[in-house]
């Protein structure tokens, strides 16, 4: 195997991985503020793509369509939290998780009613021939994916570390009661985290759509991959989610390269299981210890 092929596998893995990472970031954000897994996260990935296509068909310029789709998705995420989850926020995680499952069924089905069952194409952000680096071909759209993922991670990390909002979010992730005592508007933080998570999922869906097309049913797979990436990272910081996503993507493409394309998902899942069995809290997760 030549080095340019190896590089190509890694590039391909990082491309998929960056998309997983964006979805995983959404999982991590919601988990941090509420302690639950939002099963509708994958559907926001779907919404990002189909709404962007709808925007373009409606006549919006592409950048505007993408921004609009991310904003609308964020709005739907906020609405989901406000109207379907907040009334039950004291009922425990289980109830909330099942509500997000119900929401994902509704979102997916509504998308089919509105946008039809067929796949839809989104134009490339900046059309052009692939960039060749070290013998590996990289589509300009992939640069967009990496660029946006990078910007998002840096922005989130800065917000987490430097701003009042970030402190509020971190406080919420430790204890809602404590956060409330510190004067944090916990309800607001939770709502914001849902909106942000939806926006990130939608951004992932929109930015990858020019490469892959999109359709009403792409959410489930994106959700599974993003969840796997988030768990692999350990549901901790934004960086953990991104590393989890990139690792998963590279693992898959190296499996194709060196082992078998048919069993690439099996191989990556076996590695994930092995990681979990050896480190039950994921790669970067804090070891949760019950207090006696």
């Amino acid at each position: 195997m030549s080095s340019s092929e190896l590089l190509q596998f890694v590039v391909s893995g990082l491309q998929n991985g960056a998309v997983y990472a964006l979805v995983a970031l959404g999982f991590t954000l919601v988990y941090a503020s509420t302690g639950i897994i939002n099963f509708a996260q994958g559907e926001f990935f779907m919404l990002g793509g189909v709404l962007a296509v709808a925007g373009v068909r409606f006549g919006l310029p592409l950048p505007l369509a993408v921004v609009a789709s991310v904003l609308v998705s964020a709005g739907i995420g906020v609405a989901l939290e406000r109207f379907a989850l907040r009334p039950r926020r004291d009922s425990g995680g289980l109830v909330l998780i099942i509500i997000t499952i119900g929401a994902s069924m509704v979102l997916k089905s509504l998308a089919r009613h509105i946008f039809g069952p067929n796949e839809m194409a989104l134009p490339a952000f900046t059309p052009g021939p692939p960039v060749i680096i070290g013998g590996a071909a990289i589509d300009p759209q992939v640069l967009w994916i990496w660029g946006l993922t990078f910007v998002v991670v840096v922005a989130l990390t800065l917000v987490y570390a430097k701003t009042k909002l970030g402190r509020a979010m971190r406080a919420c992730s430790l204890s809602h009661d404590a956060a409330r005592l510190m004067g944090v508007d916990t309800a607001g933080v939770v709502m914001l985290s849902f909106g942000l998570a939806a926006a990130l999922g939608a951004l992932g869906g929109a930015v990858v759509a020019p490469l892959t097309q999109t359709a009403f049913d792409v959410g489930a797979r994106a959700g599974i991959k993003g969840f796997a990436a988030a768990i692999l990272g350990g549901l901790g910081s934004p960086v953990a989610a991104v590393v989890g996503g990139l690792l998963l993507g590279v693992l898959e493409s190296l499996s194709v390269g060196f082992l078998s394309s048919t069993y690439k998902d099996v191989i990556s899942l076996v590695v994930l299981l092995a990681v979990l069995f050896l480190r039950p809290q994921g790669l970067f997760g804090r070891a949760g210890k019950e207090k006696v």
Partner: protein
Amino acid sequence: MNTQFKMVVAVLAALLIAVTGVGCSGSGSGESTGDVAEPYRIGAVVSLTGTYAGLGTPEKNAIEMEMKRLNDAGGVNGRQVEVIFEDDATDPAKAQAAVARLIEQEDVIAIIGATGTGQTMALRDDIDRAAIPQVSMAGGSVITAEFDELVFQTPWPNRTVVPFTLRQLKERGLTNVAVISDTGGYGKDGHDIIVAQAAAAGVKIIADETFNPGDTDMMAQLTKIKSASPDVVLMWNAGKEAAIVAKNLKQLGMDVPLVGSPGNGRREFIEGAADAAEGFQFAAGKILVPEAYGVDTPAYDVATAFISDYTKAYDVAPDIFAGHAYDAFLVVTDALSRIEGDATPAALRDAIEQTSGLVGIGGTFTYGPQDHNGLTEADLVFYRVEGNEWVLAK
């Protein structure tokens, strides 16, 4: 615990009411009202939701349109035709329940469907027990390879298309073939036939990769294929991943032709792959370029009329799945029209088997006691995408 039991009793009581109610309606619908205009009832099992929603929806559209056209023109034998649709949600178990309902409660004389191969196969026990004919719109080889005298299919199965396609490759001198297929039913079926027949067709498989339905990037598989330096990449799948393969191929700068399957004869492929679709070749029936039928032939008239009607009714051109459904409906109603006397399921089955020279969208159907496929390689042509349009490949 106590009141919980009350709840259970309530639910079961409600169930019981439903049971008895349905029991009555079931027996009621079975009785003939004696009306001369009693319509022929045909059941259709299609996937309107779930993975195959994109296939089942145009199928339903085509059948509904044709049913209306036929009934407006007076129906068959002076009787109207009524098609009762059931959605199987792309689930074999649901398909089975659906067909049981169509047989039990709707008293249908034939089943059109299902959309998918797995769902089609799931119906077989019920079809056999009720002894009514089934015309499937799914392309899996297994449907007619595991022969059942009641079961027919309208698409060209991979058994027909693969040898035709391989011969096209051979004729073009593309003998070092890299195969990439999906692990879904259609892709795997095609893949296995390609592998089995490659040697006989005089081509050599030098790379063999797969991807999963829903995968969003095949760069890794194609990188491996690239290192094998094939003359041609042969792709077998029917989903949206096809466009990704085409684009990835171009991204990698591979200057080899990409050849696909009839499942890629969809506008969405061209839109999704954009300029990467240029030069893409595949075998399919003649509907995509009706001139292939020969401009003065009846087939040309049938196809152009269907295309213009469908486009008018639904605002999009019909795809190959709409064509399969058109053919299935045509096969059943044509057979009905040839029955003298009572249109029993048995008579209908025999009439379908006797179908000969029936001009449909997929080709000219001639079934026989050993052949429930009806189509031959003569109904296939080789296409090429040029300027975002399908043209006949030379």
